[in-house]
């Protein structure tokens, strides 16, 4: 049996960030990951480091997202140092396009509400004229947008690779092909069985995305996560036309344009469908008419990991205090906070009060009379 300070179950963006954050602080960490064809939300991630609309009605989440955006440059620098990789972070600001005056007004209301709830981070409405000046080539059907100066984007696949590589350099271990069968609390520690192998540590994080639901109860936690499909299109490389991050389109550092932001509740089906991809294409062309000539080279579907209210779960098991739950659907945005804020708290052995709002007990709605 192999002994560690911390076992992280799940080698995606959440598990990867926490594992590296812990290893970088000197902990002996092992990441247990599945194989080549697991449902990997990390591979479907659009890549936004997005703050402007996060946490309406849930200020702790708004603050957590904002904190992560602040920490992101440090994460990018540490990734470059630790793995040599450039994760292509850019924080030029982000636009959320609105396609009618009504939509723009509703957006303005949302921004106002969030300022009141969580503070002003500079998000403002830009009208058609100002948008045209910011983004030449924007389509006539775009009525305006909300703009937040701290939004941005990164390359999610480079980030994932950098986290893994940095983990190994920091002395961490990575075990792919090691889906977890059973977790057994054992005194102050945990025994994790994967096939014929066992691993033990006094601390454990379940960051297994859609696989977390099954594992959480083994350590007195609840992680009611469900799949929400998003489909994404990516085009051939085109010359630079969009340098801001946006909620439906972004241009990668290589020059390809990604289009997305669909949501479908279809269970564990990561296929793409023509009706949805058609709608994504139509909206992309409406936003940037020049894109009509760009060719799609790839489409894929990925399953987001969604909690009932869409906000993360961070929780320490009351019954087994060494076990922690960590899940969210914004693995790129929150990577910095996970690595540089959550991981240290986990190593310290207790989640501070700011994480209370993220407990799964919030889903236990009292039955109506």
């Amino acid at each position, binding site marked *: 049996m192999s002994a560690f300070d911390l076992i992280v179950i799940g*080698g995606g963006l959440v598990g990867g960030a926490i594992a590296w954050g812990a290893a970088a602080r000197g902990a002996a960490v092992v990441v247990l*990951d599945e*194989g*080549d*064809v697991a449902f*990997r939300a*990390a*591979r479907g991630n659009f890549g936004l480091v997005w703050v402007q609309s996060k946490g309406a009605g849930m200020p702790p989440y708004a603050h957590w997202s904002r904190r992560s955006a602040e920490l992101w440059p440090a994460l990018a620098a540490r990734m470059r140092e630790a793995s040599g990789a450039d994760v292509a972070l850019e924080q030029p600001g982000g636009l959320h396009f609105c396609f009618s005056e009504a939509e723009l007004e509703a957006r303005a209301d949302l921004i106002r509400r969030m300022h009141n709830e969580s503070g002003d981070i500079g998000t403002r409405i830009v009208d058609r004229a100002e948008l045209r000046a910011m983004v030449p080539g924007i389509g006539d059907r775009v009525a305006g947008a909300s703009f937040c100066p701290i939004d941005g984007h990164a390359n999610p*696949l480079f980030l*994932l*690779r950098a986290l*893994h*590589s940095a983990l*190994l350099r920091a002395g961490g271990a*990575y*075990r*792919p*092909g090691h889906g977890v069968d059973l977790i057994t609390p054992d005194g102050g520690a945990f025994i994790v069985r994967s096939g014929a192998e066992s691993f033990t540590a006094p601390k454990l994080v379940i960051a297994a995305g859609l696989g977390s639901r099954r594992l959480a109860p083994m350590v007195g936690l609840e992680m009611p996560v469900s799949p929400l499909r998003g489909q994404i*299109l990516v*085009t*051939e490389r085109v010359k630079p036309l969009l340098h801001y991050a946006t909620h439906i389109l972004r241009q990668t550092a290589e020059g390809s344009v990604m*289009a997305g932001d669909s949501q479908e509740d279809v269970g564990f089906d990561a296929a*793409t469908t*023509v*009706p949805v*991809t*058609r709608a994504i*294409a*139509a909206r*992309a*062309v409406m936003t940037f008419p020049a*894109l*009509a*000539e*760009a*060719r*799609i*080279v*790839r*489409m*894929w579907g990925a399953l987001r990991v969604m909690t009932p209210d869409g906000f993360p779960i961070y929780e320490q098991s009351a019954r087994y205090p060494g076990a922690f739950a960590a899940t969210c659907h914004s693995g790129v945005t929150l990577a910095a906070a996970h690595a540089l804020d959550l991981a240290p708290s986990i190593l310290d052995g207790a989640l501070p009060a700011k994480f209370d709002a993220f407990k799964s007990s919030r889903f236990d709605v009292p039955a109506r009379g």
Partner: protein
Amino acid sequence: MSDRLDAVVIGAGPAGLACAALLAAHGATVRLADEQAEPGGQIYRGIGRIAAEHPGMLDVLGEDYARGQAIVAAFKASGAEYRPSTLVWHVTPEREIWVSCNGRSEVWNARALVVATGAMERPVPVPGWTLPGVMTVGAVQIMLKSAALAPHARFVLAGSGPLVWLVAKQCLAAGAKPEAVLDTSTGADQLSALRHLPMALRGAGARLLFKGLAMIGAVQRSGVPVFRGVSGIRIEGAAEAESVAFRAGGSDRRIPARIVALHEGVIPAQQMTRLIGCAHVWDEGQRCFRPDVDEWGSSSVDGVLVAGDGAGIFGARAAEHAGRLAALEALRRIGRLSAKERDALARDDRRALASQRAIRRFLDRLYPPPASIRAPADEIVVCRCEEVTAGAVRDAVRQGCMGPNQAKAFLRVGMGPCQGRLCGPVVSEVIAAARGITPAEAGYYRIRPPLKPIGLGELAAVELGE
């Protein structure tokens, strides 16, 4: 607008043409889609134009090629609907077929789908293989067939397999003499093939063997230098191919050449069958992945059949018979034939198919792809589109990458314009070798739509009908 057809056939090579013709002969509504403007696939590429405008080329290309005329004529007379210049860019397991023609996309529905998209040349990743002037032996042949163009610079043919000798002979007949033929097959290969010689002499095999030997003899007698047991091929040049270096007979040699044609066999083109979700197996004899099909060509996906070299490499003649067998099973499936009728009608094609296949094991053993191109050295680019080396893939495996899909995420292999067509086979083998597992265990890229790039505007304009 969506159409409900009895059958759709994809690919206008011998398998597709024979399949569609037979379906039409039995009264099924059948539509054949092909990306090219004229029928023939690759093996009979250009047959119509060659016969009509360059009849002298029929002698150059040989009688096996000329046979394409009859196959195309039979198809055209059959009443099957023909949709050339039509790109199939998505197919669902429910047999919704998304096509693009002239910048417009539409969807077809078929009760039976026959995928006859054929084969491709196995990639040959040797040092310098990305230089302009380096192409496949098949590409040189396509120049002859599609445009009556012959090499007109120093050129070398290198690799192993019947196609090398056939194209050498065809070039000579066209007045283009290669500087050399570099045969990478070895004495050990020949010994290992001998065991399969008795089988190879059965059916059509004896005739094919004799023809092959005659072809090789003709090339040798023409005075073209032939080197055997060649290894260590490297193509040299600053911005384009200038020479090819190699090792043969214990010495290192170099031949100036501006065209270097490579060939290490053909393998099934998997893109469409993978997209649809058909199960594939690793064929150890042919050292390639192919769809798992039964004796009719039925795949693991209901109503989807595969015919011709796309189901396993057996050549053009075998493809015709396989195409007809698939048609018969499709007819049974849509209720136009009973199983008994199907079996009776299949007898001749089944016998002929076995006869055409008899030589295969022998050829596979005689001309195996060298290990050096299945799992190339570290510095060699394996993903041409994204310029990723074999070494980078091995590094990723050392960092815990378990298979080609993780490799895609780590390295962008398979994410370029060719969508993994050219690197897929090599990346799977490199990962398998690095992990000490079989290619079947390592797996293959998950293939996503669109099969070829499709305009954002074209997709946006698609009519969903219903």
